């Protein structure tokens, strides 16, 4: 087992290296000059040739690609991602200030998603092929097919049109003002949580349906237990295992969704930062964000692999 884990950890290095190299090269293949963007991006701006050269030199963009890559990689190993071309602040500081906001939103989305998914999934299973089940399935299909950005725009327009209200503009951390934090993030969290809830509800439904046909459920019923106890205490507890697994994987997708939601709702998290960084051709920020995301994905996958290996000996001996 320990050899298996060691081997899996070793594989992380080339995976991460591949990811960052790819993004490093892709960013430089994109058309557009960072210096030109820095010097002016609206209709009245004109570029100053000398200043362009100065900026390229200052950012190290006049150096060979391999030198730029080497410098960045050595910095990344020491968690020094350099300064953002756009905000001029150390990238690590930008990440530190924005990650808690995204984590706050992700956590709310996850909690809301689960709070919606499990009751709907269970109801849909125990009322199979009834009106309740059909309604739940429509809810699930809609959640999987409606794009986040479109739903977000509809929600914004709906809130403004019917209630003359929108989530407050200025972000407040949960510990500073929980109510303001709730008001600001509840709608974005509901929208991102909706997709998660749809996936969770679908998984819960099929899992509960399967478990309800198992012998131990029949035994529980034969003992004369109340149906509510049978479902909640016996069936659901067993049915939740695959749901939790799929939610873990979907968390990665959730982070992708937050990029869109943060941009639409102007929430100053890492998602919005990533979009702004791409627009501004802010290479250090994009590379750092991709690296952090890649680490996150790799660690989640590693964890899943280790758990599987722990549960299934065939994997660790393969």
């Amino acid at each position, binding site marked *: 087992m320990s050899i298996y884990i060691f081997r899996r950890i070793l594989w992380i290095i080339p995976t991460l290296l591949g990811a960052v190299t790819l993004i490093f090269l892709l960013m430089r293949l*994109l*058309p*557009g*000059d*960072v210096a*030109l*963007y*820095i*010097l*002016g*991006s*609206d*209709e*009245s*701006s*004109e*570029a*100053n*040739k*000398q*200043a362009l050269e*100065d900026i390229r030199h200052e950012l190290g963009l006049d150096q060979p690609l391999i030198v730029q890559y080497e410098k960045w990689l050595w910095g990344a190993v020491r968690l020094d991602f350099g300064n*953002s071309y*756009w*905000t*001029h*602040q150390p990238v690590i500081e*930008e990440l530190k200030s924005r990650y808690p906001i995204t984590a706050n939103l992700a956590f709310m989305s996850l909690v809301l998603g689960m709070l919606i998914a499990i009751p709907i999934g269970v109801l849909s299973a125990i009322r199979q092929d009834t009106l309740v089940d059909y309604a739940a399935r429509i809810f699930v299909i809609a959640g999987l097919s409606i794009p986040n950005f479109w739903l977000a*725009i509809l929600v*914004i*327009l709906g*809130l*403004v049109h019917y209630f*003359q*209200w*929108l989530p*407050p*503009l*200025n972000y407040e951390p949960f510990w500073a003002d929980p109510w303001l934090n709730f008001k600001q993030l509840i709608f974005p969290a509901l929208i991102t949580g909706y997709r998660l809830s749809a996936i969770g509800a679908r998984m819960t439904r099929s899992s509960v349906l399967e478990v309800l046909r198992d012998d131990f459920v029949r035994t529980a019923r034969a003992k004369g237990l109340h149906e509510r106890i049978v479902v909640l205490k016996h069936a659901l507890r067993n049915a939740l295992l695959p749901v939790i697994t799929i939610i873990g994987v979907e968390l990665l997708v959730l982070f992708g969704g937050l990029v869109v939601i943060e*941009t*639409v*709702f*102007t929430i*100053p998290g890492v998602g*919005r*930062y990533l979009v*702004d960084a791409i*627009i*501004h*051709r802010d290479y250090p920020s994009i590379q750092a964000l991709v690296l952090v995301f890649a680490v996150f994905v790799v660690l989640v996958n590693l964890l899943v692999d280790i758990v599987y290996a722990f549960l299934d000996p065939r994997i660790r001996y393969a």
Partner: protein
Amino acid sequence: MPSFDIHFDNSYIAAQPIGPLYNSLLTFDLYNNEKIVGDLAESWEVAPDGKQITFALRQGVKFHDGSAFTCADAKYSLEKLADLKRSSVTMVALMENVFISATCRDDFTLVMALKRPSPALLSLLADGHAVMMKAGIAEQIDRKDPKFLVGTGPFKYKSYTPGVDFHAERNPNYWKPGVPHIDGYQAVVMSDLTKIFASFRARQLTMTGIGRHLEKPEADILKKDFPDAVVALGPRAGWDSFVMHNGKPPFNDPRVRKAVALATDREKMIEIAAEGWGTVGGYIGPHTPYGLPPEELKKYPQFGDDMAKRQAEAKRLLAEAGYAKGLDIEYVVRRGPMYERGALSRQDDLKKVGINLKLILVDTAAFRDRTDKGDFQAYTVLSAVTIDDPDNYYARLVCDSTLNLGKYCNAEFDKLFQEQSQMFDVQKRAEITRQMEHIVLRDIPDDRGFYWKSAMGYWNRVKQWPPINGTTVFNFGKFEQIWCQGGKCM
């Protein structure tokens, strides 16, 4: 925000939040934009030969750090404005043609020596970008550091979060007594028009933007459902243009450029791109005293009412130029609804005469890259000037100007440009600029689709907001005069 130095960065993105932290030597009268009044200069005198301007500077003015504003600061600022390493190319393009030196006769008398008379210079000094900075600031502090923001203006820097917002607070030691009335302001970064308008309707914003960011359908909603909202509309020194590379085929042939102008249905484009909020014009803002009146413009075939006749003439010209079977053009368009809508309208028009525009949509960085390198046959951009002066409008059509990306060149035009550039009398200057208009309307260096209108929404609790003029996006009065009824702005 690219930098905190608005000498260097001449975008409205920087000028709007940062401008109120500073004063200029001169400023535009908010209620009569053609009139220039003193700001940090109490008075000024132009020598009879126009080659020297003497400014009497205001005394008792303090920078936000408590130091006194003196002639040394004004001298430093003017020299910086003329230096390509420390200021934007647009500023320097104007300054370098006229500026020789600035000297201090005493602490509060500045003398500016000029190569030649220049009426545009006074407008430039009144522009929201030509602010007075503390002597030596650019050498002491990085322009990307907020500590750079030391001005004499009605507001002081408070905080800035990139991509999120910019906060400024009232300067309690402002030299002008009794102002500003508001305690501070927050400029919020929003890239999406839908979100801007939604936030305004939800009363999270006092205004949709300064002179921008309100579209006609939204204005209709405001007029219908929000009686306390004000929709302000006015001219704008910004235009849609189809810039053709005059140095490359096929647009090095004036007949092809003329065919483009003939085939372009401007009224239709105004409806599609600006939803009716636009005005047809020549090569200078139709709201200025320098352009041709509409009846004169109409004499040019590209402004005629009979589209069928214009299209037939365009086809004839193309055939004469050797493109009887039509031609394909790579057309670079900057991404954005404003640019794309106009480009589609133009694509549709030109197709009718056999010019097939292949749209290449690029983002801002790639767009600037291609246009700056001359890597285009044609491109569309919303161009704008920061001051409503003929020098600013025509600089991009002068042969050796760095702003001339389309590479148009006409010696007669350049001669008249120099001539008008030294004329203080508006009437006489207009006579020359109208001759210049006739030249470019004949040569068609680029095709002007239309001039935009400026539009913004604000709540009627905001008092003393000035009327919209051509350059409101840059010159809006530093918020010093406005106040909010009952202390609430929305």
